[in-house]
């Protein structure tokens, strides 16, 4: 029961969606199944929220490390949730867009969510620089190729590269850095990326097949959980 039902569900849903590609009358059924999927995906958000609340309440009650910060998480969570669900400060009534200008929800989005998430990623700029100083070495032939390609692309994305090779005549223009960078992207890079996506694509196809046929059951976890 704990394993058989999920395996049947996966098989049926997967098969219907595959068939709906080739059999036009099944298109509507395929659409409905995907719509179900989208709705369940929202419940996954709710699960995420529920999990978050549970974990942080546990942390607080157990007074584990940094439990004080759990309060911050929970306050942030509930304030944002209330702002969104009750559309606090939204112009217009219940039918207005939740992200409408002037709402508390959009205000928190702009002045809390945006700075936090974009600064998180901006930190990576520092780590990229540090890695290029510390780790980016021409250790062997392969690493050298990688380094040279990266260097040409870096040069090519600055006006510096254009300046450096502007003296190269038109009949040799492929050796001008910007052109070389474009060529690197659209020839060897394209070939390499294609080889990788074919490999990974086949991997995805293969695991999808295994999941549908019930050959792959890792996602169900162990029996006791």
């Amino acid at each position: 029961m704990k394993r058989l039902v999920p395996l049947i569900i996966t098989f049926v849903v997967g098969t219907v969606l595959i068939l709906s590609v080739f059999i036009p009358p099944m298109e509507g059924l395929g659409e409905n199944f995907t719509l179900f999927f989208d709705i369940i995906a929202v419940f996954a958000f709710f699960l995420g929220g529920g999990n978050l609340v549970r974990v942080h309440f546990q942390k607080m009650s157990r007074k584990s490390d940094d439990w004080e910060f759990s309060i911050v998480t929970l306050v942030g969570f509930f304030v944002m949730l209330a702002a969104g669900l009750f559309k606090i400060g939204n112009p217009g009534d219940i039918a207005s867009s939740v992200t409408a200008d002037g709402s508390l929800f959009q205000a928190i989005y702009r002045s809390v969510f945006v700075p936090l998430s974009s600064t998180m990623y901006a930190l990576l700029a520092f780590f990229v620089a540090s890695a290029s100083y510390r780790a980016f070495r021409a250790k062997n032939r392969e690493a050298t190729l990688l380094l040279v390609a990266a260097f040409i692309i870096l040069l090519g994305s600055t006006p510096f590269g254009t300046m450096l090779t502007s003296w190269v005549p038109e009949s040799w223009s492929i050796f001008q850095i910007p052109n070389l960078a474009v060529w690197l992207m659209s020839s060897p890079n394209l070939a390499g990326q294609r080889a990788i996506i074919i490999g990974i694509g086949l991997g995805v196809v293969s695991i999808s097949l295994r999941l549908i046929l019930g050959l792959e059951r890792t996602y169900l976890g162990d029996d006791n959980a």
Partner: protein
Amino acid sequence: MLSPLMAITVQDIGITVSLVFILLGLAWLAWRSFSGKEVDRRIIFLFIFFSVAMPVIFKISFKFKATPIVNALYEKIESLPNNSTVLISYDFDPAMAPEVQPMADALSRHCLSRDIKIVYMCLFPTGQGQLEQTFSTVVRNEFPEKQDGIDFVNLGYKAGGEGVLNVIVTDFEKMFPTDVNSVPYSEIPIFDNIKSCKNLDLIISIGGGRPGIKEWVLFVGDPGNIPMAAGVAAVVAPQLYPYYPNQILGLLGGVKGAAEYENRLRDSDPKFADMPTPATTMMGPQTLAHIVVMSFIIIGNILFFRNRKRGEIS
């Protein structure tokens, strides 16, 4: 007449000072590395911060020529007849916004000025917040005469990623019974002759994560044979080249792609002369930071080869 000396502005001084500062810094770093002393990672961080901050303050900027892959998208939009409908999907979060928001704005501006209708939607929940920014800076601000529902429509966000795409490729209304302001699909004039993505003239996905342009190609572009183009964060741009030109007709990669598009647009028509060009402005700090990163690579490698030689001798 101003003497040449008088023409020197605060900006010029600023630029010179920052260049000198960065050069001195690099020299110091090289000297310290070669004398075998460990350089703290935080010093490198500080260095990057300055080399980005200074050109931001003093506004160094450059012009860019559009590369073919960027130009392809520009030409496609130019070739669309009036009253065509383009879908622009905001598949990004604020973290990628500095790179891709300028593209989204420039593309919206281009389409609206050519009387092309735009259907906006997003696959990222945060896309809806970013969409609101385009609405306040471009759509409502620069094109006050354009009407919601007739010239553009905002469908907003739906959860599910590829699940959303799999439905709209054959049926729009099923996925989007209303737009973001709860106006029913059947009451939105844009959709009079649009039943599914197959009726659209072009789809542009602006993004850089999952779900994003790759999902659009797999679930909508290929199955529906619909022209697709993309504006993406630089991180994923290289991965999309295999789909160009058969599956994606044009691609703006990172802030450079955005700057190229902005310049192409500005050069094409005097009415765009005063348009804001955030991406072009960002290319100044980019350039300096790139030079610094390249110098890091060079210093690092000289150090590496010197140490290896020493290792061989001893």
